């Protein structure tokens, strides 16, 4: 097992509710040259004149780190295109304009919800000096001390503390939220009313995603379980196997249950029927675009280019993707006789989802193992969901994001090797360690997080869909599922008014 040093200076504890302790000493300056010069003049160095040179370098480092965050945001936003192509390719031709439009619109809908209230609720108390977010924009809204459930500050990105660093951070976080928001559009495809979906997008950005994000990344109670429950470094999730993917996956599960299966999916005796997607190349292109964007998702989660662990993270991400795809290829061939392209694509995504939480804390061999396990897990999960649970998931979102997301959360507690993550969540750990280092308490924190996702978070989103459905029916609008006639005709015309592939050109 080889060890990379995470940073050149020793880590420090940070008493403020923040995602990580800052890993290098950074003067309290804003990322702006005039103010930086003024601030360095005000700070009285205890040593001699050579302190002004490191200060300028440190300022540049902060600026570079903010650039890294914004680049990461751009890469993750591009993943919206990946999701759109994967889902549309896996669905039928007559619904293509509708499916791709849900993926398109969810970016803006989630953004709007997050812009007005979601971001403050999740990250009002967050700060991280490495890219220039020195002070949180707000503080606790619900709860206090180690038991914070929601934050406040920065409503509609206005008020005090709205700096470029904060806005760059918002952009990165909105991209993660939109990833969660777009996951259920896959499992609910081909029978979801447009108007009902629109409400989901706003709800996800405003309330649903911020809940678990506040409890973990925002510095809330799950992050503090290292202190309140002596669980390792608290709940650890580097880039969001849990916070983003499993949270999206349980929403996909709740939505698929609430809508029910597509017409013709299950025979009278319950045997599943194949409803093949209409464009395999589109689905695979989408998978590659997701792989591309995932480097922003994972590697830029160091929030610092000055923290070269980003290279380890990038490699681990690629390794899990490669091993996941090939394992899935071999496993589906073993199970059904041929290397089904859809399952290969799901295998790559499963590996990526599963490595997303542990990517900074594990060695490359472990990243490969995680990819291999995910490649088998996703296929068996798809079979289980379809054949045993009789739930219709046109793209496998529940299995890729929900099941493999939970696996990724647990994988931190198993494969983390202690080489990185000192003072995570403000704790006293020297690094995040799992079972392979003989440490079981981290797994405890991970299991707690997984249980919370599968119970509380699932409960919230399931209630949302059921209540929305009941209100829609009470208003005479027929519920959140499209009518049988519309579904049979294809949602493109009845819902969107255009055909993805018009008849005669």
């Amino acid at each position, binding site marked *: 097992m080889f060890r990379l040093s995470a940073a050149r200076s020793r880590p420090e504890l940070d008493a403020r509710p923040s995602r990580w302790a800052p890993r290098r000493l950074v003067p309290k300056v804003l990322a702006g040259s005039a103010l930086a010069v003024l601030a360095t003049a005000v700070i009285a160095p205890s040593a001699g004149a050579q302190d002004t040179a490191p200060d300028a370098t440190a300022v540049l480092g902060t600026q570079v780190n903010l650039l890294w965050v914004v680049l990461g945001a751009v890469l993750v936003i591009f993943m919206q295109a990946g999701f759109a192509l994967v889902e549309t390719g896996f669905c039928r031709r*007559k619904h293509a304009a509708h499916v791709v439009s849900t993926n398109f619109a969810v970016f803006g809908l989630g953004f709007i919800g997050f812009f007005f209230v979601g971001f403050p609720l999740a990250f009002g108390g967050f700060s991280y000096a490495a890219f220039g977010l020195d002070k949180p924009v707000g503080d606790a809204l619900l709860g206090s001390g180690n038991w914070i459930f929601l934050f406040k500050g920065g409503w509609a990105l206005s008020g005090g503390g709205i700096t470029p660093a904060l806005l760059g951070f918002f952009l990165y976080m909105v991209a993660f939220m939109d990833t969660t928001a777009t996951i259920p559009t896959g499992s609910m495809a081909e029978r979801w009313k447009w108007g009902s979906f629109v409400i989901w997008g706003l709800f996800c950005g405003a309330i649903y995603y911020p809940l678990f994000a506040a409890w973990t990344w925002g510095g809330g109670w799950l992050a503090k379980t290292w202190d309140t429950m002596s669980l390792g470094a608290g709940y650890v999730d580097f880039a969001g196997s849990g916070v983003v993917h499993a949270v999206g996956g349980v929403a996909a599960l709740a939505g698929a249950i609430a809508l029910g299966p597509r*017409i*013709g999916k299950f025979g009278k005796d319950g045997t599943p029927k194949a409803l093949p997607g209409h464009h395999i190349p589109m689905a695979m292109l989408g998978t590659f675009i997701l792989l591309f964007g995932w480097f922003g998702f994972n590697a830029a989660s160091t929030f610092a280019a000055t923290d070269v662990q980003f290279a380890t993270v990038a490699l681990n991400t690629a390794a899990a993707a490669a091993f996941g795809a090939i394992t899935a290829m071999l496993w589906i061939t073993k199970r059904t006789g041929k290397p089904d392209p859809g399952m290969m694509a799901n295998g790559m995504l499963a590996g990526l989802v599963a490595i997303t939480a542990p990517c900074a804390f594990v060695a490359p061999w472990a990243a490969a193992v995680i990819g291999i396990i995910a490649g088998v897990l996703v296929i068996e999960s798809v079979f289980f969901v379809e054949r045993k649970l009789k739930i219709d998931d046109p793209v496998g979102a529940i299995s890729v994001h929900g099941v493999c997301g939970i696996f990724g959360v647990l994988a931190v507690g198993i494969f983390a090797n202690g080489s990185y993550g000192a003072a995570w969540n403000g704790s006293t750990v020297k690094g995040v360690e799992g079972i392979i280092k003989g440490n079981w308490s981290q797994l405890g924190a991970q299991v707690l997080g997984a249980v919370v996702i599968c119970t509380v978070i699932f409960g919230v989103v399931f209630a949302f869909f059921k209540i929305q459905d009941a209100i829609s029916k009470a208003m005479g609008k027929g519920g959140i599922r499209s009518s049988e006639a519309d579904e*049979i005709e294809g949602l493109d*015309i009845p819902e969107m*008014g*255009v*055909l993805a592939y018009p*008849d*005669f050109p």
Partner: protein
Amino acid sequence: MQLITAIVKPFKIDDVKDALKAAGIGGVTAAEVRGFGRQGGHTETYRGTEYEIDFVPKVRLDILVDEGLVDQVITTIKDAAVTGKIGDGKIWVTPVSRVLRIRTGEEGADAI
């Protein structure tokens, strides 16, 4: 020999196929077509401009049968394809003067 042609709703073709197999019919040719009858089309808007969609997607089935089976096959298709809603389709019969199986060269009833 007769050629039975049926125009049915696309989502009905699995039911029709299963019914024909159960009735012992050996082969069918299917094609995706578009058409209209009384069902008619409707007006939609594309980027602000209205346009008519007249042609509705259907599936056309062609089946070669012996004289004696024509009535039975028509009934089988009709019962499997009917929904009661407008646009269910039509079935018609045309006489066929000669049929040949390419692989063996058989003709007539042996070729069906």
